[in-house]
Every structure is written in C-alpha cells, then in structure tokens.
C-alpha cells in the first residue's frame, strides 16, 4: 500500500462536495466514500470532517435533513445544493489548472529551462 498522504490545506471541502455530489450521505458516509474513492490513500482525522461539513452547510453549499441509516439509526444526511454544485465545478476546474501548471513545472526537463 502506498504511503498515506496528508490532506492538502483547503482540499477537504472540495472532497466533501465531490463525495456528496454522488448522492446524499451522512457524515460517516462521507468519510467512507472519500476513503473508498481514494483507495485509502488519504488520511482524514475523522472528527475534522464535522467542522468542515458545518462550514459548507453554513455557506449554503450543502443542505441537510434527518433520515434513517442503513442500520436503522437516525442520521443527518447532507445533500449538494445548486450553489454547492457550482462551487464544486469551479473548484474542480481551478484544481485541474493548478495541477497542470504544477505538473508542467515539475516535469520540465533541462532543455526547457
């Protein structure tokens, strides 16, 4: 297994939005989905998820409602709002641009300098 990478500053919000964009999830579900998509390559301190969720909800990017979980427990479900969807698209775009730029810089050979 590859060494686990620490989460880059500010990327947690984006990952949460992405995870929730695939369907409503409760907090624990968000954690599981991120781990699942990333093949367990990312460590997230589990509790830190919640301040981030509250922040996104506060900003109107996520909406919440109480529902029942798969093992019949009451759980709070998060769902992407229209504003959240726009935000996710924009974040993805700028992330890709950034990654391209950084990649180009790091991949530059001596002949390009």
């Amino acid at each position, binding site marked *: 297994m590859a060494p686990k990478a620490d989460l880059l500053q500010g990327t947690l919000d984006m990952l949460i939005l992405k995870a929730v964009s695939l369907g409503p999830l409760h*907090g624990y579900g968000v954690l599981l989905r991120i781990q699942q998509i990333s093949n367990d390559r990312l460590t997230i301190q589990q*509790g830190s998820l*919640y*301040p*981030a969720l509250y922040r996104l*909800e*506060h*900003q*109107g990017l996520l909406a919440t409602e109480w529902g029942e979980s798969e093992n019949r427990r009451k759980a709070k479900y998060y769902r992407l709002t229209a*504003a959240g969807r726009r935000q996710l698209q924009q974040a993805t775009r700028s992330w890709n641009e950034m990654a391209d730029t950084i990649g180009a810089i790091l991949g530059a050979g001596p002949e390009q300098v």
Partner: protein
Amino acid sequence: MTLLARLRSFLRAALRRSRMEHEMDAELRFHLDARTDDLVARGLTRADARRRARAEFGDPIRWKEQGREARGLRVVDGLQADLKYGVRWLLRSPGLAVTAVLSMAIGIGANVAIFSAVNTILLNRLPVADPAALVLLAQAAGDGPAGEIQGTTFPYPFYRLLRDSDEVLSGVLAAAHMSPSLDAGGPPERVNGELVSGNYFDVLGVQPHVGRHFTQDDEAAGANRVVVLGYGCWLRRFGGEPSVIGRVIRLNGLPMTIVGVSPRSFQGLEVGGGAELRVPITLQAEMHGERSRLERRGHWWLQIMGRLKLGVTRAQASVVLDREYRAYRATLPRSEDAIEQLAVLDGSRGDPSLGQRFTLPLMVLMGLVAMVLALVCVNVGNLLLARAAARHVEMSLRLAMGAGRLRVMRQLLVETLLLGSVAGVLGLVASRLGVRVLAQLAGAPPEFEFALDTRVLTFAATAVGITALVCGLPPAWASTRVDILRALRVETSQYTPGRMAARRMLIAGQIALSLALLVGAGLFARTLFNLRHAGFGFDPAPLAVVTLNPVLAGYDAHRLPGFYAGVLERVSSLPAVESAAFAAIPLLSGGFWGSGLTLDTGGRHDDMGPFRNAVGPGYFGTIGIPLREGREFTSTDSATSQPVAIVNEAFVRRYLGNGSALGRRIGPAGPRGGPRFTIVGVVADSKGARVREELWPFWYVPHSQLEAPDGQIEAAAELALHVRARGSPTAALHDIRQAVASIDSRVAIGGGATLKAQIEDQVETERLLATLAGVFAAMALLLAALGLYSAVSYMTASRTREIGIRMALGASPPAILRLMCATNAPTIAAGAVAGVAISLLAAERLRPLLFELEPADPATLLAATAAVTFATAAAVLAPARRAARIDPAATLR
C-alpha cells in the same frame, strides 16, 4: 446569495441554540456508533472497537467548538460570557456602577429630551394622511424661481378657483385665524379658533375623535351653524364628555351646535397650534357682524393648503398654479397691489413658521446638551480609567495567558456598553419627564405632546452607543497597553506621571467645556435681564391691558362709543385704578399697524412707514410716556372736530427734520390717504409692538377720529383698555373685569394681563434658553468639579508614600498643601484658557439670540471664569488638605 444563506444559518443556530447543540451531539454519536459497528464487523471486541473509534475521531469537544465557530456562534458565545462577567463585576462595585450609570443617564436623558423637541418641531410631519403630498401656497416677490416668500394668505375667490379646477391638486383646503368670544355657560372668553373650508378635514384625511367633522355641505351658503372642537378645548372646557355632541354653545353670541371633536394628535396646520375650535368659513360675516369676505377678490386672509395628485410633483404643480395665480391677479384692479408670483411650498410639516422661529434656539440647546454629554463621557471615562488602573493585574494576567488585546478590549467595552444601556433606559424615562417640563416652560397647551417615535428611539440608541464607546475606548486602550512583566512583578498603586498626563488633559477639557457652558448660560441670563429691563420708554410695572370687542357681542357701530365711554368712566372711578385710556393696538402685544405716510410737504411713503396707533384721551399720561411739546388728546377731539395727531421724537427726526413739528400736517398713504391730521403734540420715544424692537417712529391719532374719513370701522370695533393701577395691577385686573361685566356681561374680555406678564410672554424663548442653559451649566460645573475631586483624591492616595517620605524629611503640612495645589494649578489654568477660547468662538453663533449684549461680553466671561476657578479650587483643596494631614509614621511603616 450566500451571504443570505449564512445569515439564515447563523440566526437559526443562534436562536435555536439548544436544538443545534442537540443535533450536533446526535450526529457525532451516530458517527462513533457506526464506526464501532464497522470495527466490530471486522472482528474487534466491542470495547476495543469503541476505544479505537474514539481515538480515530479525535477530541469531540474540539470539533464541536470548531463547528460552532463555523456557524459564526463564537462571537455570540464570547459576548455572552463578557456580559455575564460584566454584570458580575458591576454588582461587585456598585458605587462605581451607580455613579457612572447616573451621570450617563443625565447626559443621555438631556440629549434625548432636547432631541424630542427638535424631532417634534423641526422634523416630524403633520399627523395626517400621507403628509408628503401636502403643499402650502405662498406668494413670492420677484419673477425668478428663487422669489422671496412674502405671505401665505389669499382671497376666497382664488381659493374657490383652485378648488374647482382639479388639474394638479386632488384637494384644496382653506383656513383663517379668528379669536371669537366663546360662551359655554360661564363668563364669555376669547379663544383661538379657525374658520375652515368644508373639506378641511377631508383633504387632510383626519378622522374625528367623536362625532363628525365638516362636510362640503357645511360650507354652502346659509351654512349650518356647526362647530368642531379641538381635543384640548374639549378636555379642558367640556370635561372630555362625548355627550357634548349636539350641545349648543354661543360663539360671538351666535348659537352653534357642537358636531365633533378632532383627535388628540391633530393640532392644525402648525405644530402646537392652539386653535381650540373650528367653524365653517361661510360663517365669517355672520359671526363677526361684518361684511362677507367671500366675494371680495382683493381681500387676502386665507391660508391655502393642497394635496398633490398622484404622480404630480411640486414643480409641476407650481407651474400650473402660478399660471392660475397670474391670471387671477390680472383681473384685480390696479390699486390692489398683489405680489408677483405664487410659490408652492412643502406642506408636509404644515405651516413652517413655528419651526423657523425655534430652529436656532433648538440648535443652541442641542449644542449645550451635547457638551453636557461630552462632559459626562469624560467623567465616566475618568472613573473607568481609575478602575482600569485597579484592574491592572487582572488585565496583565489575561494578556499573559494569551488573550488577544482586542479580545480584552472587547470585554471592557461590553462592560461600558452594559453601563450605557442601563443609563440609556433611565435616560429615556428621564427624558419623558424632561419634555413635559420643556413643554410647560415653552407655554405649550397641556395636551401637546413631544412624540416618542422610532426617530427618538434611534437617537437614544445612537447616543448610548457613542457614549459607551467614548467612555470605554480610552480606558480599554490604556488598560491593555501594559508591560506584562513589570505589571505582574511590581506593586501596582504607584504614581506614574505619564499615566496622569492623559487624565490631566481630560480634566482640563472638562474645565474648558463647563466654562463655555457657563458663558452661554451667562449670556442668555443677561439677555433675559436686558429684555426685561429694556428701555421701554415707560415703566411697565403698574400697567395692565384688557381687550374689548363689543361687536362680537352684537353691538353695532352706533352703540360702540356709548359702551366705551361707559367702560372708561366706570373703570377710571375704581379705587384700584389711577387712570385709564383706550388704544386700538394694545401695547407690547406683538401687534402693529402701519399705513404708509403722506406729509404736508408732498412727501409720501408707500411702504408700511412709521408705526401707528389710535388712542384715547389721557393715553400718554396713563402709560407714562412724557409729553415733550404741545398737548395730549382730550375728549374734545371728536369725530367732528379738526383731525389731530401726536408724533414721537423718532418720527420728528426721521420725517420732519428741524423746526417745530407742531402745526405740521400728516396722514396715511393709500387711495384714501392724505395729510389731514394736524400735529398737536410730540411725545418721548417708546416701544410699541415688541420688546425686541428699536425705538421706532410712531404717530397717533384719536380713536374717535379714525372711523369716519377712512371708513375703517373694524379698527375701532376692538379697543384695548390700558390701565395704570394704584397698587398691584393683578388685583386691579380683577376689579376691571367686574366693572366691565357690570356694564354688559356678554362682552368677552380678551388678553387680560399685566404688562409685565405680556413682556414675559414675549421673552418666552429667551427665558427657556436662560433656564435650560443655567441648568445645563450647573450640571457641567458639578461634573467638572466632581471629576477633578476624584482625580485629585486618586492622585493623592497613590502618592501617600511619597508624601510620607517628604514629611519625614522635614516638609511641613503647608508645604505639602502648596505642592498638591501647584501640581493641579496648571491643569486648571489650561482648562480655563481653553474654555475662554471656546466661548469666544462659540458665542459668536449666539449673536442673533442676544439682546443689547456683545457675544464677547467681558463681565460674563469674567464671572464664568471666576465661578469655574472657585469650584475647581474647592475640588482640589479638600483632598490636598487631606494629604497635608498624612501621618508620615503610618505611611512608612
């Protein structure tokens, strides 16, 4: 949009706090439970799984705290904690809290009270439907758009013209002042009233308190004899009984039916306007026993207000109405010299004359109370500063433990805001009492109320905010600017001159402000004195005046002379009366009369010219105006004898020049004018209409000769009886009333007052200013002295050890006293100098309110400086003497 979402989320979290907390707990619990289940499914024991889940999760308290922060709740929580702490602290030092709250309450209360007056008189709109659409018509001189306003009265035919054309106005009303004699069972009394058009209340959109208001039918010719009472009149004269509807009262002897009462809030077209009752305009002739004015195209007597149609601007209305006005004016005969153009004024505040009269006095009062509040702020700030020194260690400890400076300052500001809020509530209550006193001082009718509306409340809240900030910020700043290490190590109550410098400056500022306030109060007090003792040209003390109008009681022109002769004879023979005489215009009543002037040389003055009066035999002797040349009028000057006149010395100087005035002929200007009257006497100068006027040129004719040539019977219908009393004029007034009633009890006595009282009426504004300025200045001086006293006490206390050492080394108590005084003398001197400078600058603005007084009045400046020096010296001496009595042995142990 996200801002809105954030606000909504914040409010939801803040207002439904416990539910949010509960949900947060449930959510975290669910996470731990779900994780534990998963781990158990992977083969761990439940206990191990639980432990592992917790470890992976981290500290839930921390996450919850961050969660709250994410919702913007941290500030709320912090403020709540600050508030709790603040309350606890205030309860621990009640003396300080009470002092601070009380002085802030006084400052805020005074400001809110004066602002309430500003609000009601200058800012508030009329309490009618949609006041913004109301316009007031006025005549303006000149042809440009910026024509000067000349008057606000119009003839009835012009009013009718506007009412019947509905181009720009949806409604037009007319009103005129009158003062009928009201007979509601008791002795008849002259009251303030209004003649109004039938649609008056409809156009204003005012609903009656009881009964009904007028309708257009009430204005029809041969109108109903109906009357609508004002709320105050109803309350005072009719006991506020709804059963008065339908009752018949007599106005000028005419029986009239009460049909309604207007609401309390409605005072007419003027704030605090005193109309006690209103009758339809069509009753004018019948009520006053005179020719009807309704068809007179050149008689300017009606105030006209209109309501703009929806979508019509004032400028548009102005164009249309001015056109109509010019067309109307063109139909008038040439001799009716109407003013060029019509102006359409904002009518939302009604007739602006009251506001104009009170603008400057109110602004001055606002300035005075603002200064008082500034003083309060300095004082409370000083108190808090002293306390900040005492809390030095606490602050240092907080900062040492890592509290941010802003966070600590916030804590301190919350405490001041708490003080300010309590003071604000108290101040608001106090201001309600204050405005009642204010209304009384200003002579407003008892039902008059200064509104307590959102504007006043906003002002009060702003005053609290500013006060708290100004009081609290400097101490908060100072007490968080600490050298932590030093503060925690060294004993705190040390005399640090640097820290004292700031306080000294504040104290000097206080002294300066209170000195300036004292100067203001002094100037107003001297103005009042000057007005009361103005050179009237006679001694007002023994005089009294009553106004009689027998026409209102049904007398016709033929019976008038008989009635007046009878009254004069009866009154003159009263033991309390030394002499009595009639005049058409009562002395110092504010009323004046001018009719231009023509001279025997052919000279002609078509402006108002000199003031004029028509007086009876013995008038000058009764008033005490010395005769310089010639003779007084006598009873032989009658309608059939040679027309004669008496002029004053100013008249001679201005119009006649050198040579004897006796024998010269003068007369009024105008179509029926001409120099008919031969001058038979010259009298000394005296004031006529107002206390504040100069000694104006005057000419007098016998009132018996007034009627025939001019045809002006109106002038002689009402005469004012001037009486010189033997003893107290107040007592004489009583006898005079009885004497008049014994001749005809139906004749109402108007304006029965001593001349002294009449003068007091005229100096009402000045009295108000002098009284309030005096109160505010006294408050200021007290505050400054208290501030100085507490500061010096504090400094003395912190120098106890030093003084002990000095004394132990041989300093005598007088030397210590000198030292303490010397330390404070520069502060006082600096404050006094600054105060004189401020006074000189500010007093110039007061010039229009002063009377026979320069703003830089040396006596006032000197007296104010002396008072401040005396008070501050006393405030310094007490603690200084305490210092001199220090026992060195006790302090050094």
